[in-house]
C-alpha cells in the first residue's frame, strides 16, 4: 500500500513551489510502504486497463511499476504462484484513480478563488511571526534543543490562550455541521500507521518510534482510520462525520529559510475532520469539507486562496484534493494552512471500512474524506502577521468570546525575558 491522506498534508508546500524534487523523493519513499493488512486479491488488469493505469501513474509522478506488472502478468499466465503474489503487491502500490477534471491541469494547481478579507498595512511596517511574538514576550524557541528537543517551542500568555480559543472556535464550527467529536490516542501500533500509507522505518521516516515498538501518530486521521477499520456500517449511518483534537508528531525536519520558526515543527495540535460515506455521497461531501474550511478562515478574516491540486500533488490515496493557502504578510508568502481530500475507496479497501447498502443488503467499501479544520502553528503565523497593529495584535472578532472578550494581544511584563546564565559558581 502507499501513501495515506496524512502524508498528502505533510508535503512541502511554499508559494514558489521550488521544492518539487524533495516532494517527489518523499512520495517515492512512502510509495514503498507495505500493506499491513492484505486486502482481497485484485483481478488481473486487461491490456487496456494497464495502459490507463500507466497514464495515471505518470501523471501523478509515481514510481512507474507498470513494466514490472506487465512482466509479472506474463509469469502469472504461465502459472507462477510466486509471481501472482508479487503482482498483488505491485497492484497495491498503484495510486488511486484521478478525477477527470484534473487531466489537463499539468503540474500546477489551479487557483479557484482568492478571498481578501483584510486590508494590510504597508509592507515596510510588517513583521514576521517570530519577531512579533518574541517582541511581545509570547513565544520562545531558542536554546531549547538540549532540553526539550530540536525545533521545540513554548507559547506563553495570550498566545497560549489563543491556541485554546482556536480549538474551541473550530470545534464549535465543525460540531455545528454535524461532526461528532472523538478523543483519539496519539500512540499507535506500527500496523495502523502503515495501513495509512506511512513508512515507519528507513533513513528518513517521518514517524517517531517509541521504546515499546509503537509509534507516534502524525495526524488523528490515523487513529480515526484505526477506529473504523474492519467495521461494517449501515448505509443510514452515512455520511458519518467525526472530528478530533489531537497532538501530531512528525519526525521530518526542514532547514529551509521559508520554513523557519514554527512553520514546520515536530509537534503541534490540530483539529481534524474525517468522514465515511457512500460512493454517491463522496464528491458532495468533499465540497462540504471545502466549504467548512473556507468559512472557518473567512470568519477569521484571513486573506487566502483556494487551490485545486493537480494529479502530481495528490499523493497516492487522494482522488482529488483542495488546499487552502493563507497569505502570510510578514513572510511575504502563501503558506498551506489546510487541505481536504477525497480518497474514494482507496483507504477503505485497505482498512476494511465497509457499509451495508439498504436497497439490497450488499456490503460495499465506503469512501473516506479527510480535511484540516485548524492546525495551530501555521494558523498562528497567519493570524499574528495579518492582525499586527504596531506594538499589539488585534484578536479576530470570532475568537474574542473564547478569550473572555479580550480585543488585543499586548506585551506581558509578568513573563520573564530569556536571560540565560552559563553556569553559577558555588
Amino acid at each position, binding site marked *: 500500500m502507499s501513501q495515506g491522506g496524512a502524508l498528502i498534508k505533510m508535503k512541502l508546500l511554499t508559494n514558489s513551489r521550488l521544492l518539487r524534487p524533495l516532494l517527489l523523493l518523499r512520495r517515492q519513499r512512502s510509495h514503498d510502504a507495505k500493506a499491513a493488512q492484505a486486502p482481497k486479491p485484485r483481478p488481473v488488469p486487461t491490456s487496456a486497463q494497464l495502459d490507463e493505469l500507466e497514464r495515471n501513474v505518470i501523471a501523478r509522478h509515481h514510481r512507474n511499476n507498470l513494466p514490472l506488472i506487465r512482466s509479472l502478468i506474463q509469469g502469472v499466465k504461465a502459472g507462477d504462484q510466486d509471481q501472482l503474489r508479487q503482482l498483488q503487491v505491485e497492484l497495491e502500490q498503484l495510486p488511486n484513480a484521478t478525477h477527470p477534471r484534473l487531466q489537463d491541469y499539468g503540474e500546477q494547481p489551479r487557483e479557484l478563488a482568492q478571498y481578501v478579507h483584510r486590508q494590510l498595512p504597508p509592507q515596510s511596517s510588517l513583521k514576521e511571526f517570530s519577531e512579533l511574538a518574541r517582541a511581545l514576550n509570547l513565544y520562545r524557541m531558542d*536554546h531549547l534543543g538540549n532540553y*526539550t528537543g530540536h525545533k521545540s517551542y513554548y*507559547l506563553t500568555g*495570550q498566545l497560549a490562550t489563543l491556541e485554546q480559543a482556536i480549538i474551541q472556535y473550530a470545534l464549535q464550527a465543525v460540531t455545528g455541521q454535524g461532526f461528532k467529536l472523538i478523543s483519539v490516542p496519539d*500512540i499507535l501500533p506500527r500496523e495502523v500507521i502503515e495501513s495509512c500509507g506511512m513508512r515507519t522505518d528507513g533513513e528518513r521516516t517521518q514517524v517517531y518510534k517509541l521504546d515499546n515498538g509503537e509509534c507516534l501518530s502524525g495526524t488523528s486521521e490515523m487513529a480515526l482510520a484505526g477506529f473504523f477499520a474492519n467495521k461494517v456500517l449501515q448505509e443510514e449511518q452515512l455520511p458519518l462525520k467525526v472530528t478530533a483534537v489531537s497532538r501530531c508528531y512528525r519526525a521530518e525536519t526542514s532547514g529551509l529559510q521559508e520554513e523557519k520558526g514554527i512553520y514546520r515543527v515536530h*509537534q503541534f495540535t490540530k483539529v481534524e475532520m474525517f468522514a465515511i460515506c457512500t460512493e454517491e455521497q463522496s464528491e458532495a461531501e468533499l465540497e462540504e469539507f471545502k466549504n467548512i474550511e473556507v468559512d472557518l478562515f473567512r470568519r477569521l478574516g484571513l486573506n487566502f486562496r483556494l487551490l485545486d491540486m493537480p494529479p502530481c500533488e495528490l499523493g497516492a490515496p487522494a482522488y482529488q484534493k483542495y488546499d487552502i493557502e493563507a497569505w502570510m504578510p510578514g513572510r511575504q508568502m502563501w503558506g498551506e494552512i489546510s487541505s481536504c481530500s477525497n480518497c474514494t475507496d482507496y483507504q477503505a479497501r485497505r482498512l476494511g471500512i465497509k457499509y451495508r447498502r439498504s436497497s439490497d443488503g450488499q456490503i460495499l467499501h465506503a469512501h473516506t474524506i479527510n480535511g484540516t479544520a485548524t492546525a495551530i502553528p501555521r494558523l498562528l503565523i497567519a493570524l499574528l502577521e495579518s492582525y499586527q497593529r504596531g506594538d499589539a495584535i488585534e484578536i479576530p472578532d470570532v475568537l474574542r468570546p473564547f478569550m*473572555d472578550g479580550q480585543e488585543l494581544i499586548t506585551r506581558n511584563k*509578568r513573563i520573564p525575558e530569556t536571560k540565560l546564565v552559563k553556569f*553559577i559558581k558555588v
Partner: protein
Amino acid sequence: MFSLRNVFKKGLSAWKTCSRNISALYITGDKANENYVTLQPYLDFKGTFSDRQSLEQSIASRGLDIGLESVLSKYQKYEMHHAQLAKVAEEREVVTKRLKELTKAGGSAEQLDDLKERGKSLRNDLKTLKQKLYPIEDDFIHDYLHLPNNLHLQCPTGGQEKLLYRHGLPKSERESFSHLSRHDLIHFVDNNRYYMMDQAAHFDVNAMQSLARYFVKQGDFIQTANPDFVRCVLLEANATPLTDYHLVQEEHLQNKINTAYLTGGAAFESYLGAMTKLCVYPSVLPLRYICCGRSYNRAETDLNGPIPSLYTATQTNAVQSFVATQRADEAECEQEHILNLAIDFYKTLDIPFRIVYAPAKQLTPAESLRAVIEVYAPSLQRYVCVGRISNYGDFVSKRILFSTRREKHYDFLHLVGGPVLYTSRLIAALLEHGFHLEDCKMLGTASAKTTQQQDLQQFKDLFK
C-alpha cells in the same frame, strides 16, 4: 491506599534507573570529549551535608537504599584529591609567575631552566592527579546526585497518607460498575490506546480548558503551551524515574546519553526546559504558569491496575501547574493557593474527593512534600489520583540553574507544581458515580461569560 508491593516496585525501579553509570546531568572532563555537556548543575555539597540528621531521616523515611556513610567517605576522598589538585595547580601558578618575572628581570639561564623543569614536573603531576580524580569524582558525584531532597515537616514519614481535605463520602451501597461498560462513550483497546465519544470527548476537552481558564482568571496564572518531549538531562535533574515515560527513538541523535522522552506538554518536566539556566528579575515572582496539554505518564499504571482501564491509561488530557517563588514560605503559600483553586473546581463538580499528603515512601527524590488530589473510584473501591501538587524546594532549581539575582548573589527559586487534573481518570470516576457528563458544572467555562456578554450586547443593540 497503596499496596506495599507497588511502592516497593516503584522504589526499586526508581533506584534501578538512577544507578546508571553515565549521567546526562553530570559529565566528568574525560568523558566531555564524546558527550556534550549541556548543563553544569550547581552542586552545593556543604549545604547538603550541613544538616546530616535531616538528610539521614529523609533517606530512611523514603526507604532509599543509600548508605550516607559511604557517600560521605567518598566525599572526603573527593575533597582530599581536590585539595591536592588545587595545591599543585596553585604551586604551578606560582612557578609560572616567577618564571615570567625572572625572564623579564634577566635571570640566569640555570635559574630559568630549574623553574622550567619544575613547571614541567608540576604540569605532569597535575595531569596525573586529574586522571586519578575522574573516577573518584564520577563515583562520588553520581552518588551525590542520587541523594534525596530534605523532607518537608508536613510530609508523613510513616506508611500512611495524611488527610488534608475531604468532600463528600463514597456511597458504599451503590452497586458499582466499571466505566468500561459504557461502550457508547468509551472504546478501550489497551493502556496506550483508547477512544472517547460524544459527551465523554467533549468533557475531555472542556474540563481541561475550563480549569486552565479558572486558574488564569481566579488564580492570576499565566497560560502556556509546552513541548511534549523532554530530554534525559531534565528528567535526571527532576529525579524522575526514567521508566515513567516512553523513550523516543530518534534517528539522528547527536548526544547519545541525552535521549528524549515522551512526557506530554502538560508534564512538570516539560516546564523545566524553559527554566533551565534562566535568571529572572524578582519583579516577575511569584511566577505562576498553567497549561493544557497531553500527559503520557505511566508511573501509576501498576498502582491503579491490575485491570487496564482509563485509570491505568498512559495518555490523558491534563492541566499542569508550575510556580516559582523566591522563598520557601512563599512556596508553601503557593501550594495552598493551587490546592484551593483545585478544591473550588472539584467541589463544583460535586464528586467525592479528598486531598492527602502522600507518605515519604511515594515521593520522588526531588519532592519534599506531595499533596495528592484523589477522586473516589467506585469500581476500584478506593481513591485514585487525578492530580498532585508537589513542593520541590530549591532542589531542582539548583540542578537546572533556575535563579533570580539579589544584589550580587543568585537565589535559586523554590518550585511548586504538578498536574491539577487528569481528565481520563476523572471521566471514569464521574461515569461510575452515575454523573451525566453533559450536565456537569465546571468553573471557568467560557460559555457562561459569553452568554452574559451576548445578553449585554443585545441590550445595547436595543438603543442603537
